[in-house]
């Protein structure tokens, strides 16, 4: 066992059943989900497809749980050399880069729509003929309260933008509070990290709990915001390109916050169990990187979706 932890040997795990079952779980999930969507579109029953999707997802979740458990057990058994730990560091860093590029696609779409597609539809510039021929009445105003064709896409009556630049407005502006919440949570997760490195387990648990609570609070606010949008603003997924970009950008971000909060709660549970050591806690570090990344994306969202 001693040599497995030394720097000379890189631990290559023996055969594993995990990945192929994870693949089966994932494919059942998406096949079920795809069938549900197609069933709904064709007005058919969705019971069977839903069951497939749920079964697949449970299998996937179970396997991933096993997978992470094994990795943690191996680390505790001292099988991971410093070199192997560096592989995890590289892996997480590049995974976050791939996430950045996923959001870049949606930010890019927003940029294109606001700077090119909508102005052209409004008749602006050399390509403005598009608008003149298709919908001459349409005025290019962002956020879109009138769609090029209101008959095809029912427009919202109100948008989520900043109505007036006064302290009074911002005091009741949920996105503003959500920005403060996420920025604060980035700081608190850092405090948790500092406490962890100082071998202060109580501090770690306290700060991490605060971070998780802030994540949950953010999500609660987002649910309120969405309810408001659907219930009072008529702002929905199908209310034109403003709603499309708004909900996909904030929605995928919200999904990542959900995932991040879940990961941090797992880290909280592991902290309580005493899994982490001041010099060996990459699981925690990876979770905090992910959290900082989610935070940075939100700052981008706050500027480009809400403020500008």
């Amino acid at each position, binding site marked *: 066992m001693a040599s497995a932890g030394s720097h000379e040997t890189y631990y290559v795990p023996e055969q594993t059943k995990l990945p192929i079952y994870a693949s089966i779980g994932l494919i059942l999930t998406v096949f079920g989900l795809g069938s549900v969507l197609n069933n709904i579109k064709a007005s058919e029953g969705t019971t069977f497809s839903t069951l497939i999707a749920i079964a697949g997802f449970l299998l996937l979740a179970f396997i991933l749980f096993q997978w992470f458990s094994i990795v943690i057990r191996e680390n505790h058994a001292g099988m991971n050399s410093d070199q192997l730990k560096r592989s995890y560091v590289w*892996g997480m860093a590049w995974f976050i880069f791939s996430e950045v590029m996923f959001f870049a696609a949606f930010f890019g779409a927003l940029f294109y729509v606001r700077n090119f597609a909508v102005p052209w*539809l409004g008749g602006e510039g050399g390509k403005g003929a598009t608008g003149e021929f298709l919908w001459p009445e349409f005025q290019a105003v962002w956020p879109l309260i009138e769609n090029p064709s209101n008959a*095809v896409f029912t427009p919202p009556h109100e948008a989520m933008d900043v109505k007036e630049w006064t302290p009074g407005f911002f005091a009741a502006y949920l996105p503003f509070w959500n920005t403060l919440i996420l920025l604060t949570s980035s700081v608190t997760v850092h405090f948790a990290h500092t406490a962890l490195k100082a071998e202060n387990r109580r501090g770690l648990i306290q700060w991490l709990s605060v971070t998780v609570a802030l994540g949950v609070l953010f999500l609660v606010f987002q649910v309120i915001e969405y309810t408001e949008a659907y219930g009072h603003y008529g702002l929905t997924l199908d209310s034109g*390109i403003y709603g*499309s970009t708004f909900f996909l950008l904030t929605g995928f971000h919200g999904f990542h916050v959900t995932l991040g909060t879940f990961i941090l709660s797992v880290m909280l549970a592991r902290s309580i169990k005493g899994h982490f050591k001041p010099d060996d806690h990459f699981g925690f570090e990876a979770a905090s990187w992910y959290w900082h990344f989610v935070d940075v994306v939100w700052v981008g969202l706050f500027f480009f979706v809400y403020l500008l």
Partner: protein
Amino acid sequence: MSAAHDDHHHGPAKGLSRWFYTTNHKDIGSLYLWFSFAMFLLGGTFAMVIRAELFQPGLQLVEPSFFNQMTTMHGLIMVFGAVMPAFVGLANWLIPMMIGAPDMALPRLNNWSFWLLPFAFLMLTSTLFMDAGAPNFGWTFYAPLSTTYAPETVTFFIFAVHIMGASSIMGSINIIATILNMRAPGMTLMKMPLFVWTWLITAYLLIAVMPVLAGVVTMMLFDVHFGTSFFSAAGGGDPILFQHVFWFFGHPEVYIMILPGFGIVSAIIPTFARKRLFGYDSMVYATASIAFLSFIVWAHHMFTVGMPIAGELFFMYATMLIAVPTGVKVFNWVATMFRGSMTFETPMLFAIAFVVLFTMGGFTGLMLAITPADFQYHDTYFVVAHFHYVLVPGSIFSIMAAAYYWLPKWTGHMYDERLGKLHFWMSFIGVNVLFFPQHFLGLAGMPRRVPDYALQFADFNWISSIGGFLFGASQLILLVVVIKCIKGGKKATAQVWEGAQGLEWTLESPAPYHTFTTPPDPKLIHDQ
């Protein structure tokens, strides 16, 4: 836990479970290569259907809608099922051996990257048997063909693409972590074989653009099922937005399918010219430049959509710039052969054909880069000829060259040289008869993706189809060669090729199940 440790010393597990549960980079490399070969034959079968229908003018064999399904599935399967997995398979087999690493950095993740693929393609090809038929909107799946007017199987297509993307991202993360973290002491970056360098850059490209592909298919999913209007002008979106996001993925993607091929050819030509590679450093920098440029040329695929003139000019000049680093590479390969003591074994034949025919595909690419000329060429068979020249005698020839070159190291036997040469010459003749006339068809105005055509195109289509059948049939020779080589043949030495350099040739043939569990002697690592 001691079993895990002892694992380093014994061989593969017995029975079928070996292939399902393996964490060994060589096993996973073989899985990828066999999967890729199967997909190559499947996608090739679809191509045979296409060429059979186009053999004569008029509608003979298939319905136009099925023809569209064939062109779509042929493209998707060849790109995502044949070419990309073949390169990942080669990376799995070779990178750890080339840099002196015991395995890939994340072996379990490696198994997952592979096993996602068969399921994704099972779901994709199963759409052929569904009532609505398979996706029929072309492998570039432009909106609104792929949204408003798509068959309902588009949903499964979207999820299949998501899973292939996940597989590629995980595979690439693994490759980058392996290259950056697992090199043997003494293997500095500028001593790495070019195949490793080109894969490092390819993996970076993959991680950068596969999420963008996931993003664009996600927008499609929401347009189809949730009423969003990303690609619908009535709601303020734009179908052209689809093309921008797609090609932001798509252009780096075409380099993803050629850069590892550059690495392979850069390994083979020096071996059979018995000279060092000319201009190693410039090869590395040229590869990096091509990767950078690949991000700023995407709109040359869409010159005819009505972009502002400044955009047309920018994308034209940026595209032409790519000819510079590519020219550097071609020059270096030719300079490597110059006054070398050359012999022409099968891998070398494929490598030389690669240099010549890929360059030709590159030149037609330059023609297509000229915006005003592209107005004429756009969506014609000229484009089909262009990208098939870079992909078939380009990417695929490089993969075949690699297969012949490293087969003795993998199997421990020499392949049948006579059959190999037969395979090469039939492929070489077949590919040119198949694709060269398509240039003329395109210049004369035959559009791509049509099941029927005007009578004046009949002769060249007839020739092209004959070439297609010849090329298709010759690939069965490769199957025979590989099976024969696995079953037996002349024993291969460790060195295999007289002029070969690199760590993999210091290992016995076949390479042991576990290699470099302790790092190799730094003296074995040479300057490039």
